[in-house]
C-alpha cells in the first residue's frame, strides 16, 4: 500500500514533465500538422540552459531561495523559446507549402543537429548537479516503509499546473489564442481575415518550446543528472503521451503525459526496470492500433 502510494507520487511528478513536453508536440501538430521531432531536443537544451543558469548564479553566490529557482526557470524558458523560434524560422518556414514529408525529415535532421551541437559544445559526459531543493515531507509510514513527498516533486506539480493554467487562459481567452485556433482550423481563411499566420505559427513554437524549457528545468531539479541524449527518450515518450491523449488536444497531452508517467513508474516498480521503455512504447503501438484518435482527440471528419 505504502509502496504503491510512493509510486503514485513519483509517477505523477514524472508524468507532469512528459505532459509539459507533450503540449509542445500537440500544439505544433495542431497548427501545421507536423510532428516536430526536434522538440525533445529543445527540452534537453532547456535542461542545459537551466544548468548554465544555476552555475552562473552559484558563481555570483546568488543561488539561494525560491527567487533564484524562478530566475533559473525564466532563463531556461526564454532561451528555449529563442531556440524554438530560430528552429521554425530556419528549418520549417522555408518548407511551408512543400510536400508533407519534407518538414518531418527536416525535424529529424534538426534533432540530430541539436544533439551533436550540445555534445560538441558541452561535452559528452553526464553533467551532475547537487540537489538544489533537498528534503521533503513524510506523508505516511507503514512498517519500515516511509512514503516521501519531496519538495522538488511538489515544486514540479505546482509549477506545471500554474504554467498550464496560464497557458490554457492564453489559448482560450486571448486574441492570440483565438488566432492560433483559427489557424489550426483553416489557415488560408485566417489569413484572409487579416491574421498574420506566419507570426502566429512562430508564436506557437515560442510558447511550445518555452514549456519544454520548463520541463527541462524541472527534469534537472528532479534528477540532477543530464546529458546531451536525454531529449531523445523523453521526446519520444512525450510524443507517445501526445498520441495517447489524442494529438492536437491540449488537455489530452497532459492526461497522456500523466498516464505514461504512471505506467512507466508502476511498471518499473512491479515488473522490471529494464523493460520500462518497452511498456511505454507498447502503449504507443496499442493506441495507434485500437484508438488512433487518442483518448481526447476528435475524429477527423472527411470533408465532402
Amino acid at each position, binding site marked *: 500500500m505504502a509502496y504503491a502510494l510512493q509510486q503514485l507520487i513519483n509517477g505523477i511528478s514524472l508524468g507532469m514533465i512528459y505532459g509539459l513536453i507533450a503540449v509542445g508536440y500537440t500544439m505544433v501538430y495542431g497548427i501545421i500538422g507536423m510532428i516536430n521531432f526536434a522538440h525533445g531536443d529543445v527540452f534537453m537544451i532547456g535542461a542545459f540552459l537551466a544548468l548554465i543558469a544555476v552555475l552562473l548564479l552559484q558563481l555570483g553566490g546568488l543561488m539561494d531561495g525560491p527567487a533564484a529557482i524562478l530566475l533559473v526557470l525564466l532563463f531556461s524558458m526564454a532561451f528555449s523559446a529563442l531556440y524554438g523560434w530560430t528552429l521554425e524560422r530556419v528549418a520549417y518556414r522555408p518548407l511551408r507549402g512543400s510536400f508533407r514529408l519534407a518538414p518531418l525529415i527536416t525535424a529529424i535532421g534538426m534533432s540530430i543537429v541539436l544533439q551533436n551541437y550540445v555534445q560538441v559544445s558541452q561535452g559528452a559526459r553526464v553533467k551532475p548537479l547537487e540537489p538544489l531543493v533537498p528534503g521533503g515531507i513524510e506523508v505516511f509510514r507503514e512498517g519500515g516503509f516511509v512514503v516521501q513527498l519531496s519538495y522538488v516533486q511538489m515544486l514540479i506539480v505546482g509549477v506545471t499546473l500554474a504554467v498550464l493554467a496560464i497557458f490554457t487562459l492564453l489559448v482560450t481567452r486571448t*486574441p*492570440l489564442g483565438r488566432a492560433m485556433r483559427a489557424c489550426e*482550423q*483553416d489557415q488560408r481563411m485566417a489569413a*484572409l481575415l*487579416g491574421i498574420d499566420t506566419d507570426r502566429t505559427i512562430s508564436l506557437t513554437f515560442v510558447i511550445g518550446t518555452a514549456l519544454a524549457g520548463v520541463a527541462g528545468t524541472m527534469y534537472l531539479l528532479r534528477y540532477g543528472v543530464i546529458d546531451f541524449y536525454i531529449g531523445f527518450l523523453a521526446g519520444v515518450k512525450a510524443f507517445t503521451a501526445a498520441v495517447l491523449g489524442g494529438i492536437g488536444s491540449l488537455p489530452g497531452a497532459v492526461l497522456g503525459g500523466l498516464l505514461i508517467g504512471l505506467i512507466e513508474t508502476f511498471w518499473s516498480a512491479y515488473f522490471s526496470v529494464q523493460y520500462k521503455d518497452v511498456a511505454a512504447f507498447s502503449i504507443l503501438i496499442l493506441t495507434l492500433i485500437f484508438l488512433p484518435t487518442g483518448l481526447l482527440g476528435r475524429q477527423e471528419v472527411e470533408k465532402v
Partner: protein
Amino acid sequence: MISPPRIHRNMILEVAGLTMRFGGLTAVDQLSFAALHGEITALIGPNGAGKTTVFNCITGFYRPSAGAIRLHHPGALPTDLHRLPGYRIARAGLARTFQNIRLFPGMTALENLLVAQHNRLMAATGWGIGAVLGLSRYPRAEREAVETARRWLQATTLLDRADDPAGALPYGAQRRLEIARAMCTSPTLLCLDEPAAGLNPRESDDLARLLLLIRGQGTSILLIEHDMGVVMRISDRVVVLDHGRLIADDTPAVVRAEPRVIAAYLGEGGEDEAA
C-alpha cells in the same frame, strides 16, 4: 465592341488587364472593370466563365499572370492587391466569403466574429501580452469587439445562436455568419462568392435585405451570383463574363436586354445556369 474601361473618380476596385493562365488554359483574358464606391457590383456569367478565378486573384489566392488589381481609398494612394500576401489584403480593407462555407467550425459563432477583429484587438492590447497581464485596456477593447460582433449577429438574426459552435448551425445561418464575419473586419469592399447558393426564396429575400443594409452602411459590395432575381433586384452595376472575357458592363436593365449576354447564357454551349 466593348467600351474601354470606365475611369471613375469614385472607383473602389480597379481591375486592369487582368489575365490568368493555368498551363495552356486562359481562364481570364485581359479583363478590365471597376467597382464603384457605395455600389453593389455583380459579376455574372455562365459556368466556367472565370468569375471565381477573378475573385481568387482579387483576394490573393492566385497570383495573376498579368494585369493589375487596385483597391482605391478616398484621399490616399491605391493599394496594389496583386502584390500583397493574403493577410495584408484583409488589412487593406477587403473581405471575402466563399462558395463553400469556410467558417471555423470548432469555434462558436461569436468567436468566429472575434477572430475577424484580431488585428484591432491585438493592436489594442500590446500583442496579447496585455491580455495575459490583465491590463485595463484589454477588457475595454474586448468589450468593444464583442459589441461589434453582437451588432452583426443581430443584423444576421443569429444573436440567439452566439455560443453555438459554428459547425452546428443550419446551412442558411452559416452563410449569414460568414457575411457577418467578413463585415467584422470592417472592410471597405466586401466580395461575396455566390451568397445565395442553396438558399430558399425566403432566405434569398433576407440576404438581399442584408446586402442592401451593408451597402447603406458605406461598404461597397462585389458579388458573384447565379440567382438572377437577387442580382437584378439589388445590383447597381452588372459585369458579365464569358470564357474569361468581358462581354457587358452596365446597369441591370441594360444588361438584361443585351443580346450577347442572352446568347452566352442560352445559346451555343447550352449551359443552363441562368436559373
